[in-house]
């Protein structure tokens, strides 16, 4: 519905030397569902609040539908926002909460009624319209907050950690509902969260931030498969990627006392970037480590591991072990491996990532990096 462009946006708070948001550039297309994700204090909420107009933009331009919005009051930006604590008006009923913004706009009563009832229907709030927020459960309140945003038919939805106050089950339920709602309404949505699962499941594109700087922008698959640095790699995916110190020669990869044979093209990458025989950081996703029940010794990609802890998660198990001097987590098909048991694990070296030990940037072939730059 709306195209939003942010050019070189910076945020500096009074009484602070450093920038909270440093040079933020992002172009958001119609109907996109953008998720800003990152650890707390990374500037994602500040960015959202700048888009909403609740914070001043220190430098740079914010364009919505090609109009500069920096100095436009929040109410004139045609946005709606859902807050973490819902920010429902405690003294008003559910109906009044949803109708309030429309009443302020002096919309006629029947139109308000129509919109509120429709939103209530979509959100399943029809029975609760006469209640005060106090008399609602957390999920219901969350839906009222959504409804309050919906009735305004805004060009842009802004959501600031809207699910973080809900319990796990409700959260995954609401996640699906918001996605469904987005598909139905098709409004451009900018969503802030610190939870990578929400980002992965809901976003059309994810913006990963750290210390006020965008680390990577991409579809969930892109950021998962091709993280640009160790931070993104570690942040996306659960459990987190394993990082292991290693050295690679022409023929083999050495991790601690173990030596592995890895695919040619992987060695090529290291060779082309000049990392042969240098210490690098190896990134292995837990799901790329497999359990080999048949003890085939001396296979080039297997190693013997003592399992410190084995966690049964249902269909999968998490195995905690160590390789070299690092801890390693493997996500394997459900097994009944006991703690302390010795097993054979294999690593899918086609899917490993290399990171520079110092810069923590990903090590990749030149054409690959070009590919990422384009996206």
């Amino acid at each position, binding site marked *: 519905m709306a195209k939003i462009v942010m050019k070189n946006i910076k945020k500096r708070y009074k009484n602070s030397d450093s920038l909270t948001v440093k040079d933020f550039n992002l172009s958001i297309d119609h109907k996109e569902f953008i998720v800003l994700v990152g650890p707390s204090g990374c500037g994602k909420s500040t960015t959202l609040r700048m888009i909403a*107009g*609740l*914070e*001043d933009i220190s430098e740079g331009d914010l364009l919505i539908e090609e109009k500069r919005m920096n100095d436009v*009051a*929040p109410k004139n930006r045609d946005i709606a926002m859902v807050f973490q604590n819902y920010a429902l008006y405690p003294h008003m009923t559910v109906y009044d909460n949803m109708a309030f913004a429309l009443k302020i706009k002096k919309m006629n009563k029947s139109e308000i009624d129509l919109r509120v009832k429709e939103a209530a229907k979509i959100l399943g709030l029809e029975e609760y319209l006469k209640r005060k927020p106090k008399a609602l459960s957390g999920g219901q309140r969350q839906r009222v907050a959504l409804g309050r945003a919906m009735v305004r038919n805004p060009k842009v939805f802004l959501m600031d950690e809207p699910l973080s106050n809900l319990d796990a089950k409700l959260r995954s339920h609401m996640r699906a509902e918001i996605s469904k709602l987005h598909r139905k309404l098709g409004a451009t949505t900018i969503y802030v969260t610190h939870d990578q699962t929400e980002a992965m499941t809901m976003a059309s594109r994810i913006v990963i931030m750290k210390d006020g700087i965008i680390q990577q922008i991409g579809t969930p698959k892109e950021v998962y498969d091709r993280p640009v640095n160790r931070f993104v790699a570690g942040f996306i995916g659960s459990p987190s990627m394993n990082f292991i110190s290693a050295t690679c020669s022409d023929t083999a990869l050495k991790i601690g006392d173990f030596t592995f044979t890895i695919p040619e093209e992987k060695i090529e990458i290291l060779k082309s970037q000049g990392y042969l025989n240098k210490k690098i950081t190896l990134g292995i996703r837990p799901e790329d480590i497999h359990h080999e029940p048949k003890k085939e010794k001396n296979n080039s990609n297997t190693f013997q591991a003592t399992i410190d802890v084995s966690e049964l998660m249902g269909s999968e198990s998490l195995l905690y072990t160590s390789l070299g001097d690092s801890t390693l987590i493997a996500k394997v098909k459900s097994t009944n491996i006991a703690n302390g048991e010795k097993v054979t694990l294999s690593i899918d070296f086609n899917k490993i990532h290399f990171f520079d030990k110092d810069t923590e940037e990903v090590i990749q072939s030149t054409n690959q990096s070009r590919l990422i730059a384009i996206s």
Partner: protein
Amino acid sequence: MERTKNQQFFIYLGVIAVMIFTLAPIILLIIATLSSGQDLNSKTLHFLPSHWTLKNFTDIFTAESNDASVPPFMQALKNSIIVSLSTTFLTLIIAILASYAISRFRFKGQNGLLMSTLGFRMVPEIALLIPLFVIFARFGAINNLSSLILIYTAFNLPFAIWMLQGFFRSIPKSMEESAYLDGVSSFGVLIRFILPISLSGIIATGIFVLLASWDEFMFASIFTSTYDSKTITVAISEFSKRGMVNFGMQITGGLIASLPPIILALIFQKFIVSGLSEGSEKG
């Protein structure tokens, strides 16, 4: 959104207006205490005295020697300090115990108790003046600071209990439950957990009680006639004789009497505001 220059201007304008509204009378009061009798009694409108003098202050503390009709001001000051401090301590101790019971235990007549406590605040003090005088006179307890302390304590208790139970209620129960599991008695929980946590609320309540008992006049004026028992409010009212008011003495005494509560209010300003807001959230 940060404020625009315009908004900024109006806010400062508002702040200045508030300050003028608040401080102008006080500043005039202070100036008056530093003025001579002629300046105070001259008819022309003036804001600054023709010459500054500390005579009013020296007079008020030496009043006894030259005019016995003026109660020795220092004695009255001392009486008021004794009465209001004792009242505050006594009220707080009794109210803390009672509010702890009301906010932490479930027992019969709990709500009725709280409501009727509040009800006592609604009775006009004048209704109690004669009965209390008769009762206290029968026990020979007139002209006695202890009597005033007891009366003020009773008057302030409902308010103090009502405030404190609000604070106590806002403390999560889980914390004391874990203390119970560690074997702490209920009194121990009160002393070691409830009190330190609600300290700002207790201080706020204490300030309110202190100011109220410092302020009281009606009972003090009827219950005290000796210099040993007259409080400062009575002393100030007695600077006026039949048809003649010694404004110089009266306002100088007034300024001195105002200093302790004002200083306390300034020192504990943060506690009072935060204490009140904590209480109002849960109260």
